[in-house]
């Protein structure tokens, strides 16, 4: 009997041990040692800041930077592939053969950024509860940044693919992954505009950060307004909507005025007097003067050196920061040139930039932008391949035809500029032109406004031949539209703007005129290229093949739906 009792005690003990294990579900909860898990994240201000930084860091990765260039620039008349560079995918795009398996149809990097933004928007408000140092005042600028970056990414996608899935919900687990269908551009645009208007009120003031790295490197009120202007201009061009053009003018004014105010404040701080419209400049806009410094006799282009050489200039509104160590701008290094590749970089400026071409882009060889955006040919000949200088070199010249000093590929630190003052000014000019009556001519105020914006920019870069632009030559709406377009090309070439400029232009009923401009870059086969872009639908990229495979709700852009000859039976 005793024996049995003892056994029972032991049995009970064993059973108890076992039950203890059952209840011990905690035993099965382990956390990784080299990563932070969601439950432990989003606790303090630094967590939010680090995740916000990730959104920007994501945008500096080469899969995104390369797309700013390919989507916005490579298709345009500005560039060609270097003859010694073979890249099938880029080659196809350059020859207007857009195929759904082209890797540049892959949009995943943009949606990754969008998701980062959505994750911040989802979790950041709750951090206020756990960290008293994180206040509403900290939260609002961050929300504005996230809404704006999300809008910027969607805007890129919309301009490239037209109908796109619009993502506003954070995806963090496999259950939240959905087969999202596309929506039409109008829906996306109106949503973006709502977001940007919301962001406008919350965003950081343009000089709100303590350093210019953040004032230019993160989203500020000016950046929101600039993007808003860009978005409105696009919608206006799509729908020929005067209200949107007017809103665009207003948004641009907000940016320009803010920049003027900034300049005023700066001068006041430095104890300088302000003249005229409040600036010390000859122009009424706070542009960096490109005059030769009479005192020193230097012939460096201050505008180029400050804007592209050094970055974060006073004209800048929003640019991605590359410090050349943790973030190296390798795409621009490979494609535009570095100390090693120099003249043989992968992408080259088209013959348009050579003076020998019949269709001169620059009105004068003295245009400092020509000297600084390309390595100008020594003689006035039609050169097919011109090395790009913009971003690649750290200094600019006023008269010399010299490449100057290139950045080294391993420490390539050129920022990527999304918006700067002249871009906004020319957007405003573009909107003004469209606000003018179709038959407008002579003293139409909108055209005058547009011209004054253009000539301010033109004069800055042509210090030798100031005021050589004459209004009377561009006094019709058509001519003025073309002037603004050309000035945008001269001012903003290789900055990922040109193709979208062309599309906006074409959407306003100038399909054929746009094609004529586009094919100028091809030495042969111009007609073939024209034939490959028979209609508006061809302005857009096809949806990536791999994307269509995994998402049954996606619809291929209509002109790319083909009955492939290799379809499986």
């Amino acid at each position, binding site marked *: 009997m005793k024996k049995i009792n003892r*056994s029972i005690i*032991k*049995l009970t003990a*064993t059973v108890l*041990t*076992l039950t203890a294990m*059952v209840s011990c579900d905690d*035993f*099965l909860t*382990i956390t*990784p*040692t*080299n*990563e932070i*898990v*969601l*439950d432990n*994240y989003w606790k303090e201000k630094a967590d939010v800041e*680090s*995740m*916000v*930084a*990730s959104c*920007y*860091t*994501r945008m500096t990765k080469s899969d995104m930077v390369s797309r700013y260039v390919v989507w916005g620039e490579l298709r345009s008349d500005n560039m060609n592939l270097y003859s010694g560079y073979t890249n099938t995918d880029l080659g196809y795009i350059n020859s207007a053969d857009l195929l759904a*398996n082209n890797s540049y149809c892959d*949009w*995943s990097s943009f949606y*990754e950024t*969008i*998701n*980062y933004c*959505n994750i911040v928007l989802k979790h950041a408000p709750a951090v206020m509860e756990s960290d008293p140092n994180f206040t509403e005042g900290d939260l609002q600028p961050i929300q504005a940044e996230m809404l704006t970056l999300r809008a910027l990414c969607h805007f890129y996608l919309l301009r490239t693919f037209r109908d796109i899935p619009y*993502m506003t919900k954070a*995806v*963090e*687990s*496999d*259950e*939240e*992954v*959905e*087969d*999202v269908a596309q929506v039409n551009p109008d829906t996306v645009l109106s949503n973006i505009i709502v977001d940007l208007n919301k962001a406008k009120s919350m965003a950081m003031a343009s000089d709100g950060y303590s*350093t210019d*790295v953040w004032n230019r*490197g993160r989203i500020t009120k000016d950046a929101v307004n600039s993007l808003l202007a860009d978005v409105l201009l696009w919608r206006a061009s799509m729908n020929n909507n005067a209200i949107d053009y007017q809103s665009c003018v207003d948004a641009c004014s907000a940016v320009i005025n803010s920049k003027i105010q900034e300049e005023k404040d700066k001068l006041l701080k430095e104890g300088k007097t302000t003249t005229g419209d409040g600036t010390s400049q000859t122009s009424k806009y706070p542009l960096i003067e490109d005059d030769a410094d009479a005192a020193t006799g230097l012939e460096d282009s201050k505008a180029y050196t400050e804007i592209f050489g050094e970055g974060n200039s006073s004209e800048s509104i929003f640019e991605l*920061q*590359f*410090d050349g160590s*943790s*973030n190296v701008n390798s795409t621009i290094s490979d494609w535009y040139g570095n100390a090693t590749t120099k003249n043989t970089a992968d992408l080259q400026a088209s013959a348009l930039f050579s003076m020998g071409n019949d269709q001169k882009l620059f009105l004068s060889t003295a245009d400092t932008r020509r000297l600084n955006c390309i390595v100008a040919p020594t003689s006035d000949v039609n050169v097919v391949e011109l090395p790009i200088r913009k971003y690649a070199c750290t200094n600019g010249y006023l008269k010399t035809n010299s490449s100057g000093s290139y950045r080294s590929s391993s420490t390539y630190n050129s920022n990527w500029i999304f918006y700067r003052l002249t871009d906004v000014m020319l957007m405003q000019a573009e909107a003004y032109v469209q606000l003018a009556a179709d038959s407008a001519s002579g003293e139409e105020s909108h055209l005058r406004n547009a011209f004054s914006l253009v000539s301010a920019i033109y004069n800055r870069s042509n210090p030798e031949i100031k005021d050589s632009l004459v209004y009377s030559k561009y006094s019709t709406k058509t001519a003025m539209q073309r002037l603004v377009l050309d000035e945008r090309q001269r001012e903003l070439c290789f900055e990922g703007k040109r193709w979208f400029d062309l599309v906006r232009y074409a959407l306003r009923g100038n399909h054929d005129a746009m094609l004529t401009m586009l094919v100028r870059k091809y030495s042969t086969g111009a007609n073939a290229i024209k034939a490959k872009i028979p209609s508006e639908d061809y302005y857009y990229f096809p949806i990536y*093949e791999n*994307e269509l495979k*995994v*998402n*049954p709700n996606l619809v291929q852009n209509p002109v790319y739906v083909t009955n492939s*000859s*290799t379809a499986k039976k």
Partner: protein
Amino acid sequence: MKNKRIIVLLTLCCSLLIKVAAQNGVTRISGNVYCAEDGAIIGANVVEIDANNRIVEATVTDFNGNFSLAVKHVNDRLKISYIGYNTQIMTIGEKRSFKVLMKSTATIKEVVISARKITRTSGLVIPEREVSVAQQTFKMSDVEGLSFTSADEALQGKISGLDIVFNSGNLGAGTSMRLRGVSTINGNAEPLIVVDGQIFENPDQSFDFTNANEESFAQLLTVNPEDIENITVKKDAGATAMWGSRGANGVIEITTRHGVRGKTKVEYSYRYTGNWQPKGYDMLSGDDYTMMLKEEYYNPSQSSTSGNIRELNYDPTWSEYENWNKNTDWVKEVTQYGQTSNHYLTISGGGEKANYRISGGYDRETGTIIQQKLDRYSTRLVLDYFVSDRIKFSTNVALTYTDNQKNYDDNILQRAYEISPNMAIRDYSTGDYYKMLPSGSSYGNNNYSSSNLSDIKSLGNPVAIANLAWRRDKTYRITPQMQIDYKLLGTDEDKAQLDYTGMVFMDIFSENSPSYYPSSLSTDGWTSTYANRSYNYDSNQLSFTTRHTLTFTPHFNNKDFYLTMLLRGELTSGNSNYQSVTSYNLPTGTITNPTVNAYNSDMSSGTSQWRSVAFLYSIHASYKSKYAADFTLRRDGSTKFGANRRWGNFPGVSLRWNISDEPFMKWSSPWLSLLSFRPSWGITGNQPTSEYLYYSKYSSYGSYGKGDASITSIHPDGLKLSDLRWEKTNQYNIGGNIGMFNDMITADFNYYYKTTSDLLMKNRSVPSTSGFTSVSWMNVGSMINKGWELNASANNIIKIKDFSMSLNLNVSQNFNSIKEMDATVLESINSEWSASDLGTYLNRIQVGNPLGSIYGFRYKGVYRYDYDHYATALSEKAAGRNGTAPIVYDVNGNLVYGSDGKPLRMVYNYDGLNYQFRGGDAIYEDVNSDGQINSLDIVYLGNSNPKLSGGFGINFNYKRWALKTNFNFRLGFKIINTARMQLEKMCNNYNQITTVNLRWRKNGDITEIPRSLYGSSFYNWLGSDRYVEDGSFCRFQYLQLSYALSPQVLKPFGLSSLRLACSANNLFCWTGYTGTDPEHSTGSWGVCSDDSQTPRAKSFTLSIIVGF
């Protein structure tokens, strides 16, 4: 107050003790031990034992056989024992003086012991006739004297349904095992290995099983096959359900040897094995090679300048001439006669109180490829200590150290096949290994190699690489296991038994693999990242398991009923960490450690942790051993899954009906000893190989900003998998056993049908609009495997006097098919055809089709005539001879003419590459007769799953002689012979096999080998059935002759046993396969390809086993 209470308590205790002492007292007894023949017995053990046979007091008898003992308790018994005599047990009671008469054991009359054959695995103890699940046991003693490095090698061809394929012939390369087909897409498909009831984790957890080009760590290498008693392979879900979430691929249970009661036995065995490689391809000699290359360069351009390469010119004025005028047989240079020596020593024995077995082994192997060496030291200590009838302690501690000295890369043989045969091994002037000069202009000047030969230069000198560069893999594995058994109720079958077993098990694994690549192999100078490059990888793993088991076996007065059940709880936790470092440009060639000052190129480290909890309930019931039923339920919890999917239940049910025991079968009893029917059903699982999947993780992502203004970025790292589930396999099995003529012939048959659902798929693509392009693991679709297995043996089927013969045979067949899979999954994993991809095969997964299907073009030979000669071709064709030319025929076989009135020309990929076929090009069948070869001409070419596989053996015994043979076969499967493709393609500078001497050279040549063309824009080696071969083979695994000397002969020498054996291994391989060896494991998506891995060696073994 408190003190008072303690005092009271103490007093109470004391009084109790006194009471006990008073009751028992100390009683002194004495006596004399003697035997009738020899008189007094000196040194006999006299022991007082209690009711549980625990020793209380003990003494030994003196010179006169007298003893005296202070007995603790008169109710205890006295036990007197001496070697050679029967043990006597007597009660003490009132008796104080004993006269013990001992009887010699020799006088025992013959006794008949009847016992039921039982199977003892890590679950319940069940009589063999009641086993209701599909399992097969393999005794290691059957292959004694044969040379196996690891246990899986011994199992090859022995277990029906278990398909074992050698990864390669390199030392320690291991095998890949598939039980009842593949039931996962890219999870682990290897069966679970259990050693002495413990899951033997593969330390190489992160190994990518689907894209296994490299060799994984052969984990069974850490168990010395000599230590193994037997191996039970559990096949159906009824049996594997007890391993729950890990049991879906079947279970291989290894039981190690224990000591047995008796005199101490010392046994030593030595085996010597000589290995050599089977004959491979006949390669071109240096002379033929240069001629072929000249032609290869001439053909595309029709100009001899492109082939003007110094290395091929035999120009005596060139300074390197002497290094490029040889006829080197590189394969011969890198292969060697390999030797293996195995030493193994065991000491085992035991007495009443303890059994022990200590073993030590030392193996030294040299490979068939030069500079391959493998050393293994292993030791195992097994100790069982019987405290009493009720309590037993056991320990089982094994330590294995392996030091595998590999070649720097696994493909030395492939390099030897491909390298230029006119190149010298050693530089004629310096005598050092020859290395090519740095690359220069295409025609080569004195100080540079021709840039055309850059592929040869990057191959390097295989002999030099094998000798100067190295890689080692050193592992330690220590597996201590401690166990306590406690019989809580009855100690034998006459009473209800309740046994408790507690066990602690640790698995400590440490791996170190350094490698070194000296600058003397690199011509790119000191700055090359491959100059004096050193790499070191270290990893450690520790897992800890505790297990509590209660087994209850009630006692029925009616012996017809038998019931036993088990309840078990188990807890495992483990962690691992690794670190690796690479550095290059080490200062000297003698320092090979990456930690010295040099350029560090890569450093990484990681840690991981896992835990699991499992509960198991298992019951076995039988009636008259005629009807038996088993039920198992395992509940598993694992850290691999999120909170909502963490626990899984895995049931298994199996039944057995021994029909032959029924009264109505009485008529057959003279010849039918066993006929049974066994149905079973169960669910088992499979896990993903990664941890922490159910977390949203945030990791460091660089920083953003410039200069002082910079913020650290932290970003989400992958999707949280909240919905990930076990991969579940639902398996039905119907089986039966048959035994005839008193089990002289036995056979068992199984049919199974298993459906694997929630298939685990790695990196499944998702819409990138989610912000992620793939989900690390996802459950997608389901798969079916069905098939049958037959295992039969005939023991002593022929017995004439001293001669006997036995046979055994096993056959199995498996059919695999994808049952269901989301279209988007299929779309994203099935690659698109790309016209410019040479030598690749489409491998598509389609619902209703099996994994491992190969798709490609159909090869129809070589165009005899060029297009310009089509008129000749047509006249030849009209005359009934070979008149092939690249012209287009329609569906009806009529010529198709173009607008110019000439026949249309056959093109490759019209509108894309637009290559126009010429004479001497490969003919691909234009399946749809559209005049072009493109993806529409791709057809199904076969499957890599064998239709039939198995093995058989015939054994003969004559007196003390034994002759054993074994064969294994795999029939009806296709291999992509990539090795031959590479050696026959004639498009680069690699050496080729002699068949290319038959290549097409001019119009009118009739041959199967196309012309040679340098460059990648020619399409003579597209993925076609030219390289898809039937891999069916039957291998004569071994023939062993052994002789055991009779004990009478040995006795004078102080030996108890001596056995000599010699064997020949891998004697023949009957196959139609043109490659070196048709045995290749399947790679990604189940397709099998021959990448000229080191083939399995042919060998002979001599062995001697001595017992003392």
